[in-house]
């Protein structure tokens, strides 16, 4: 995957938001609506200006032609998701919407879960990964339902990438979704992974 700059997301957000507002907005509004930390905002704006996507005058900002083009592309991408939520305002309707979504989401979820289930029974024990090797959790074969649920609620879930950091006599240290855990050897031996 191409290396992405950490300013990519805020930059895209600003472009999209400006597109939605017809190409013009103020810095204050950007800060308010997008919630970009102040520490980032100035460098983001600086880059956008350097790339000739926006022009800033005092407290207002405007898209350049090149900026408008980029903004349009981004908007189109976004519309696919937006479709579901068009013209939703207020709690009541959001609530009703959530109920429609519920069905939509559960179908998708079920589809994904069925995919996940195909992974089950495959893979090798977690401890066989090398140091700093990443694998995909294919199965968690834990009899105790409550312990299984605990692992899941901690984010230790089927289909997730898992990186092995250290093997200790009492447990294995892993990283999942950027969080670190120590898993008892007794738990780790029931986690099966597929090499990536």
């Amino acid at each position: 995957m191409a290396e992405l700059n950490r300013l990519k997301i805020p930059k895209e957000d600003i472009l999209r938001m400006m597109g939605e507002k017809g190409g013009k907005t103020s810095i204050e509004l950007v800060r308010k609506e997008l919630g970009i930390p102040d520490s980032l905002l100035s460098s983001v704006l600086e880059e956008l200006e350097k790339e000739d996507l926006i022009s800033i005058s005092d407290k207002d900002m405007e898209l350049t032609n090149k900026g408008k083009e980029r903004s349009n592309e981004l908007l189109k991408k976004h519309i696919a998701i937006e479709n579901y939520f068009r013209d939703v305002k207020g709690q009541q309707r959001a609530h009703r919407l959530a109920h429609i979504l519920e069905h939509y989401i559960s179908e998708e979820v079920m589809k994904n879960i069925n995919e996940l289930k195909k992974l089950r029974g495959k893979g090798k024990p977690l401890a066989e990964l090398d140091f700093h090797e990443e694998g995909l959790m294919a199965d968690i074969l834990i009899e105790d339902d409550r312990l299984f649920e605990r692992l899941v609620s901690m984010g230790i879930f089927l289909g997730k990438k898992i990186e092995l950091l250290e093997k200790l006599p009492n447990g294995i240290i892993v990283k999942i979704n950027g969080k670190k855990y120590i898993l008892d050897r007794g738990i780790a031996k029931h986690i099966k992974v597929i090499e990536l």
Partner: protein
Amino acid sequence: MRRVKVLLIGQPNVGKSSLLNSIVGPKVIISNYPGTTVEIAQAEKIIDRVKFLFTDTPGIYSISDRSGEEKVTEKALFEEKVDVALIIVDATALERSLYILLQIVEAEIPCILALNFVEEAWKKGIKVDHRELERILGIPVVPINPISKNGLNELLEKLKEIKKESIGFRIKYDEHIEKAIEKISLQLRDSELPKRFIAIRILERDEDFYKFLNSEDVIKKVRKNMSDKYPDFSENIAITRYGTAAFIARKVVRIAHLKKEKSLEEKIDSILLHKIWGPLSTIMIFLITFGILLYLGNLMQATLMDSTKSLSSLLGITGKSVFKFALAQSLKGLAAGISIALPYVFIFYVLLGLFEDAGLLPRFIVNTDRYLRKLGLPGKAFIPLTLGLGCSVPATRATRVLVSEREKFYTASFLSFVPCSSRTAIIMGIVGYYGGVRLAIYVFITLGMAAFLWALAIRGKFVDKREPLLLELPPYRKPLVKNIIVKSWFRMRDFVYIVIPLLILGGILYGILEALNFTYAVVKPLSFITSWLNLPDATIIPLLFGFLQKDLTGAMLVSVLGKGASLPLTSIQIYTFGVAAAIGIPCINAFGMLIKEFGLRKAVILTFVSITYGIVLAGLIQKIFLLL
């Protein structure tokens, strides 16, 4: 005035306590490890003519309690009526944070989501679209930062507007699970909680909810019917819930893949979590801490001692009347408390706060787990035992992070051997001062040995099933000086408010007994103890009063035996006295907390047995030593 009851809830270490403190001012202890808060804390605040009652709770990964502190949260959630659950969510781990949120929504409790660690997420290249999240979930979502206080006003506005109907997204499970939910729902007693929620809990084998069933036959029947065709249907509930959370997260989170570089955290962890360097560095850190503690403690003690001495001679209270004697003794008690214990308490808590906030404690758990296991202790026992170096009272309460009742009690019993700051002060102030530092170190080593023998003797009775080690290791953070100071004060506050009055009271009591010549009546019947220890009869007084308040021990020993720079005791007697005074449930406060956590019977037995053990052991060692 309108009242709004707000329950702060969320996964461990997401900043619940930080949020409470930032809204109502410093009230609870904040640390960088999961499981800091182990009890409910409440605080009121009136904002724009609305009276908010905020309740901080221990963190829970999900509604499925495994340990004591999680039960506390569930009780707060389900047994008391709350107007709104304020769910604090970690933006860097949205997926799993949504898991618990979806569970609370299942319980149909109105909720608001506070999105914390937004800036941390940005730094990791994670962006959460909170508006989208709000739309999907159908509940208000507010980004916050408890440290800079950003977003708090908006959050309070949303809390004010909350209505009963603000109940969000509902998960739909597989057909067969939905059917089972329906079947069980029909067989439930009426209660405040929604039937669907209870039915799901029951299907997930949460026995706390079986009490809502008309008869347990229903669940057996449903399970039997299901398990033929769907052998792991309970698992599927968790999987669907997580799947839904993951799905929603995917819709609102965007991740920019940052260049992978070895961060400072990885570098530190490659040492602290190393097979060999990990345990070694943990021991080193502890020895250094102890060294600093003893060195600075001694230094402060000497200065404080001098100034309190000159103060009491300045007041010039001498004389023979009961009143004057009592007054003099109470001043002595006070002086002892301040000059002996305070330095140890204060310095210890500052150092502990540093380790906690940096995120070192969970690493220490990993490294000590292997050795604690050998004593039959679970790895997480490290936290209460470490807190025990400060004071046994909060340490006893902290045993709640453990899973089984037995584990908790067994761990609490080891607080008999962990020298709290008052006991450290006795060992250093008496044994070290009159017998030399080396002798004091022997006492510390004896405590360790005593703990080891204790484990050998009773572990068989307490350790049955081994609870697997499963722990999240938080990121390292730069400790905030302000937090450490506030925290140290909170922890010392108990010392100042409870211990110091007890010191004065103990002093008065002793003064009266002495002036009326009653001490003799106490000394005589208990002389069998002192003669076993081969100590002068009068030493029973400091030993006894020590139970009222440990810090009285030192001052009283000096006052019953004599004055000046030496005690009429041999080195071996000083050592024996130190061991006998240090082993056992230390004082009446710790005893009270034991009653609270484990009941009167267990508390009495443990206290009696541990103190007897200390006395028997001290006498025995002395006899063996004298034979050699």
